[in-house]
């Protein structure tokens, strides 16, 4: 069984083909990265996998069950949770509350439970609080837990978004350019965090521009160029693939990695 299988996925915007007949699988173990130059269709691919964009053709299987055309909230309920390229925090909530919202799919208290506060709901809320604090600790934001999300520096906002996604206990975590806007140290720290997430039984699929992060973090790569898959394999295999080097303008970006 694979965590995720994408079959002949195609997405057209009017005349433009953003994703063209892409197929690949994401195994249960480890960290997989989708890389490719700007405009290669990476985010379009993510939007389709997470249900935000219906594919024009092709199918998506999450744990061998089709999630093609399923609404994002239902996909999240099945254990596939994503983050966004432009961080999408709940700005008016605190750091702690943001992560608590992440527990939504793992909890069930509704309006009636909110008003009557039965024992099970109080217990659930305590558990939510405990798990949220654990995750805030995991990404190193304990000191900021009562701050509003909007006041955090950008790097910490990224970490908060990851903690919030982890709160949903996803089986597959999709990270859309998690290192964008981060400095050197922050990228290193992020890389370690992603490794640890992968080691704790959560499959990670990430889109990344930052080659350093990708080479240090990913076990497997899928390379896109102009909407097509041009290579797939371990970082070493991909790095020596001539088509990949060509796609990255003679390998300039790769060499920097």
């Amino acid at each position, binding site marked *: 069984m694979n965590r995720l299988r994408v079959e002949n996925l195609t997405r057209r915007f009017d005349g433009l083909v953003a994703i063209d007949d892409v197929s690949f699988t994401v195994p249960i173990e480890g960290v997989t990265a989708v890389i490719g130059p700007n405009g290669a269709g990476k985010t379009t691919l993510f939007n389709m996998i*997470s249900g*935000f964009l219906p594919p024009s053709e092709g199918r998506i299987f999450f744990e061998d069950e089709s999630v093609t055309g399923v*609404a*994002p*909230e*239902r996909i*999240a*309920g099945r254990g596939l*949770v*994503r*983050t*966004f390229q432009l961080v*999408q*925090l*709940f*700005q*008016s*909530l*605190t750091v*702690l*509350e943001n992560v*608590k*919202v*992440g*527990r*939504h*799919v793992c*909890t069930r*208290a*509704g*309006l009636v*439970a*909110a*008003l009557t*506060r039965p024992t099970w*709901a109080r217990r*659930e*809320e305590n558990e*939510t609080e405990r798990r949220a604090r654990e995750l805030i600790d995991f990404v190193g934001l304990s000191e900021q837990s*009562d*701050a*509003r999300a*909007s*006041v955090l520096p950008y790097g910490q906002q990224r970490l908060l978004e990851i903690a*919030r*996604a982890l709160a*949903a206990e996803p089986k597959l975590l999709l990270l859309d350019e998690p290192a964008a806007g981060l400095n050197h140290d922050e990228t290193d720290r992020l890389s370690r965090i992603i490794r640890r997430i992968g080691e704790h039984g959560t499959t990670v699929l990430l889109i990344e521009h930052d080659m350093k992060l990708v080479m240090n973090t990913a076990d497997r790569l899928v390379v896109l160029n102009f909407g097509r898959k041009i290579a797939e394999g371990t970082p070493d295999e991909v790095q020596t693939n001539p088509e990949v080097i060509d796609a990255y303008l003679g390998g300039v970006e790769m060499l920097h990695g």
Partner: protein
Amino acid sequence: MKNWRDFTSPSTCLRASLGYVPAVLAIALVGYAIIAGGFFVSLTSFALIYAIFVTGLNIFMGYAGQASFGQNAFAAIGGYTSAVLTTAYNVAPVPALFIGVVAAVLCAVLVGYPTLRLKGHYLAMATLAIGLIVYEITVEWQSVTNGYMGISGIPPLGIGSFEAATDREQLILLSVLVALCMGSAWLIRQSRFGRALVALSGSEDAARALGIDVARYKLAAFIVSAVYAAVAGSLFVHIVGFVSPEVFGLNMVILGFTMLYVGGIGTITGPLVGAIVINLLPEMIRGLKEYQDLVYGAALILILIYAPGGLAALGWSKRRSTSPATTTVELRGARTQS
């Protein structure tokens, strides 16, 4: 302004307690009205009824970040149901109130299901239409509503043989109900349900990506706000003893919005503070005669400049959690958070 807010040391404590001042003053005023009686009582009664109405509005607008210009429709449904059932059918006030609430909930579901898929201005226009439609019904359905003449002789609120007939009894009853309504709003805000509402107001995409069924939660918030509005409408007709279409006109929406922003959108005590300020302010400046409207307008502008998050958010600092929402809804766009 910015520097003043950014001070941390001794002023932090002072600033934190500043947030409670408007709420404490509002409660003290209600207490004074109960003890002193007289002219203050009816004024405070209206303020308390509006506090319930605005608490509901706050759940839909302040928490969930959606705009509704049609809340008066639900107040009208609650109010007219109570009025008709208690006068023409001899139903007791409490069952009549519950029937009114159920009718408002049904209407909210019927209207909310298709319109809540709309966003921003479109949702606002759709809800505005609902308010106008219900208003027209109250005018035109003369056999039931008696048209512009309205319905009089509505009995005061009571349970069984007890009737809150005197002004003071009514005020005490209203105070208890306001406390219940605000308490439940607080419980909602602290819960998984309330967090989901504030989350979707911040980012619908992120909320969906975390498994929150945004359409369902918006509808739930709309229904809850309709319940508050219907209760407020029902209480209103029992306190006044009379109802006509004008009572639940568009001015009710405008007043509600003003109270919400002056009091503090997204805060717990804001609706009460706003309702009391907006009800008392015109009375306090009545002596100014022709300058009254000018001073009223100027006072509102000053409040919104120096307390952009509303009076109840005065002591709010960036590190506190029960802060007003700052995102979404074009209406809030102009507000700045220093």
